[in-house]
């Protein structure tokens, strides 16, 4: 729902960076979206195209990498992917905060970021 606002922030940030580097054109933007955010990738792409029109970012390639969540267990020391639960009723994998190894509660380390990883520009 807040994809417009977030994409606007991304575009504003990239335009600012492009200006700082005196870029003639932005060719590619690499984005990382954590799977634990509630941002829809397709909607981000849609707004990106819309918001970059008539700017140096127009027609630039948007690459989105969806980042797998990482968790840490303070009980057994597990450090890795989040436990996923799948039941017939869900028709979907649900991330759960119990350790895949020992079952105790875990802490989220990664998966809630929206990262502008890199920008490729023509100078």
């Amino acid at each position, binding site marked *: *729902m*807040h994809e417009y*606002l*977030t994409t606007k*922030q*991304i575009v504003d*940030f990239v335009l600012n*960076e492009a200006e700082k*580097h005196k*870029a003639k054109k932005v*060719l590619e933007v690499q984005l990382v979206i954590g799977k*634990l*955010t*509630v*941002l829809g990738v397709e909607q981000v792409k849609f707004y990106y195209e819309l918001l970059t029109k008539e700017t140096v970012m127009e027609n630039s390639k948007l690459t989105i990498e969806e980042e797998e969540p990482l968790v840490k267990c303070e009980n057994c020391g597990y450090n890795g992917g989040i436990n996923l*639960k799948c039941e017939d*009723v*869900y028709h979907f994998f*649900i*991330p*759960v*905060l*119990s350790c895949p190894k020992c079952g*105790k*509660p875990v802490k*989220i380390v990664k998966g*809630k*970021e*929206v*990262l*502008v*990883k*890199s*920008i*490729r*520009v*023509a*100078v």
Partner: protein
Amino acid sequence: MKEIIKLEKTETIETEKDILEVNKKIAEENREIFESYGIRAFDVMGSVGAGKTSLIEKLVGRLKGKYSIAVINGDLTTTIDADIIGKHNVRVVQINTGRECHLEAHMIKKALEKIDLKKTNLLFIENVGNLICPSDFRLGTEKRVVVISVTEGQYVVVKHPLTFLDADIVVINKIDLAEVMGVNLDKLEDEIKNINPNIKTVRTNCRNGTGIEDLIRLLNL
């Protein structure tokens, strides 16, 4: 005729910029403000009609003799909720977000300017009625309380798992309607704890005050 091909010089800018970082930073600033003034702050989230306002109203009613309370109400439009809470003679600030589907930390920081922080030691923030978006935006509060109600159906939890990953307490409201709605409260509770074993749950009926004392104990108030 000569043809000249001009090769474009390209450059890659490594940024590693977290777009949500601005909110995280301001949330941290809010948390420092709460700490420095000794204010206990709670973010109350949940769908439209789950009972967030009724819950805060009941909490304010029970706690206003013990604490100096302020309430921040978030809504797209209207001051309906602020007016309801305002009847209890506590400081109320309404944030009308216009189009935004959630509150953000900077909105809270601005609202805090309207509150006498020296005379406040308990703050409830009622987020915009939405069970999805607020989860991406921490406000700097000590705890996040999610209110769900049985009228949202049996599958409200499994349909919105991300909200429960980042919550501390879940209030299951309107329990008096569970039977007529055909909602199994134990199953609902199991599903919440399955997603996040750290969550504490409490069953309430905000109309008659059932469960409010349990919640007050859970909030350590």
